[in-house]
């Protein structure tokens, strides 16, 4: 399990509260663009099969707040490392924060906080 800061959840944008995502059995992490080259969604793919043949579960972590591209290649590498670390320490719940949040201020920090998460079943070969 990892925790992620949630948009509009705390007393101020600089004091977010957290949600959590299960990262056991994750085999792949991608950044996804919702429009053009605006990368603001992360997909984590599980090796957990769905009831339908060929389908597996996938979590979509959505940071879409505007037109800012907030997810970088380094974020994906950092998340992979965090997932590996979390799985080696089962009782830990480390925090994942996008790199851009470190230099953000009160006016735009919420662009680096999670707006939505959804777990779906899909066929990786056709996704």
């Amino acid at each position: 399990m990892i925790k992620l800061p949630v948009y509009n959840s705390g007393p101020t944008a600089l004091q977010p509260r957290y949600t959590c995502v299960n990262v056991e059995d994750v085999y792949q992490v991608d950044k996804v663009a919702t429009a053009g080259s605006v990368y603001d969604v992360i997909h984590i793919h599980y090796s957990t099969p769905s009831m339908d043949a060929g389908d597996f579960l996938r979590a979509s972590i959505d940071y879409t707040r505007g037109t800012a591209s907030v997810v970088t290649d380094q974020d994906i590498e950092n998340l992979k490392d965090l997932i590996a670390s979390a799985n080696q320490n089962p009782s830990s719940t480390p925090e994942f924060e996008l790199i851009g949040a470190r230099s953000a201020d009160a006016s735009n920090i919420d662009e680096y906080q999670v707006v939505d998460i959804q777990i779906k079943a899909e066929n990786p070969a056709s996704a």
Partner: protein
Amino acid sequence: MSNYIKIPLANNPGRSFVTGALDGTATGGGTVAGTGASAAQSLGGGSGSGATATVAKGGDATISSATITISNIGEGYKVGDVVTIPILSGGGATTWSAEISYTILAADLVASVGSVTEPFFLMPIDNVGAVVKGSNNTEVIVELKQSNATGTGADKVAKYTITMDDTPATDKWALQADVAAAVIKAASAENSQPEVKFTSGAECLTVVLS
């Protein structure tokens, strides 16, 4: 062995009516006359406010055969509350010559499963995939890392839907963080059963697995 969180279930919280005909039988009302549903009348008494209902004469001149239908659902009513509708003597439709009295049943109100003997919902968290905001400010979803047999896309994934009362008001992201805090705590401390602490005193009505 599984880890759990405890979700407190409100015991007969004040809540809204559901629209439609009341489930029980009213008393009083004197002589009921006329035809067709009356104009909506305010409900007095009870612990809530804001509800209105129409009355339509039934097969005889008593209120027990009439149909009382909620128009405005109001807020803050409890099972066992006695609400009243004052005399209505005009208006061209159903009338009644004495105050109507009605004792609220569970089926008349928004569903709530908490009770003295069921104060908590015990949710296993070992297969939790993510804690997700609901579609509105009275809902939070716990999606499981587990497939469901039917549906497409997101509907293929099993989930708990936690439904909150709309009063006191809260926020879907705050609710999400409330539940996630308990899940994170349980995941970090085996054999603990942390209780969800809802922001702003929000009250949980139901938890449904689908």
